[in-house]
């Protein structure tokens, strides 16, 4: 089921065009939803779209308050809300359909960007890097470097390993869940090529699996944001 990716090389860097396409669309969707929903802000009784955005904000604020106590950090809140919306949309992009062109060899153009480890690992690395950054900024470089030798020096290797492990699990958990969903969807969709009887047999499981993918996408977006907040909170104390 593995298809070739549409890759180009620019400035000695390889770019995956399908991921660039889907991440750009996901980002634009998040931006327009957030921007249009808050175009006419009111301090009185909010209309439904503003209400929707405020609900998301409160949701992420609750996650923040649960992990790091009462805080008003706008940047962390912005990151959390953006992350939640972005991951939710990105996880769902590949659920309704996928586009695979097949001239001489099949090339996959449209699928969830989060079904590719590049995207999820980049986000995970950014988040872990940010947690290291706030640790240095809050407690100073010396305290940061010494924190790798706590509670005692022998644990240095394990502390280093822990950082790699958290990064890897944060990124790969999301990737694995979405990727597995997409593989299963592709298998079920492939039943169409085996005649009408097989296709009609696969229709109901396909529907159920799509619903399950929506569920998994939502849960994984929530887990990703929650873990982000936990890792940030870990550095604050």
């Amino acid at each position, binding site marked *: 089921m593995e298809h070739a990716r549409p890759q180009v090389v620019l400035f000695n860097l*390889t770019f*995956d065009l399908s991921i660039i396409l889907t991440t750009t669309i996901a980002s634009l969707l998040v931006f327009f939803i957030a921007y249009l929903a808050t175009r006419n802000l009111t301090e009185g009784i909010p209309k439904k779209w503003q209400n929707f955005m405020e609900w998301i904000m409160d949701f992420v604020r609750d996650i923040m308050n649960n992990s790091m106590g009462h805080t008003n950090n706008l940047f962390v809140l912005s990151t959390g809300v953006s992350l939640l919306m972005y991951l939710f949309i990105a996880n769902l992009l590949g659920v309704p359909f996928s586009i695979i062109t097949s001239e001489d060899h099949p090339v996959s153009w449209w699928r969830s960007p989060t079904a590719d480890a590049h995207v999820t690992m980049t986000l995970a690395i950014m988040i872990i890097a940010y947690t290291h950054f706030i640790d240095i900024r809050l407690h100073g470089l010396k305290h940061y470097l010494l924190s790798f030798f706590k509670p005692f020096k022998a644990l240095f290797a394990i502390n280093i390993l822990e950082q790699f492990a958290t990064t890897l699990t944060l990124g790969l958990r999301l990737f694995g869940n979405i990727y597995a969903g997409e593989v299963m969807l592709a298998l079920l969709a492939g039943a169409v090529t085996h005649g009408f009887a097989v296709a009609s047999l696969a229709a109901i499981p396909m529907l159920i699996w799509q619903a399950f993918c929506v569920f998994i996408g939502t849960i994984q977006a929530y887990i990703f944001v929650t873990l982000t907040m936990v890792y940030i909170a870990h550095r604050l104390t």
Partner: protein
Amino acid sequence: MGDITLFGLPISLGTMVYQALIFTVLVFILKKLVFKKLVGVMDSRKQHIENQLQLTEQYKQEAEKNLELSAEVLNQARKDAREIMKHSEYEAKLIISDAKFQAKEIVKEAKEELFRSRSFMHKDSKGA
């Protein structure tokens, strides 16, 4: 195909750079254009509701005080009314008894006068 391979997996750095870039841009744009305003609006609404709640509490206390005050005034008025009634009853009794006494006096006087005039007439007729 990829820029580097890690444990045999090809990694395309360009994709990662683009992903990092677009997400960072998204966060900063949303923070500047949307979340700042939205948090401001939500906070000021919270403040507004808190103020309103405080005001209602204040008004409630004032209303309770006013209610107590008016109840006191009502009680005072009732008491006054009762006293006035008692007083007026007493006065009325006084007036009535006074009137009765006066009436008796008048009657007595009239009788005396009648008696006197009669005896006078008697004397008069004897003398003639």
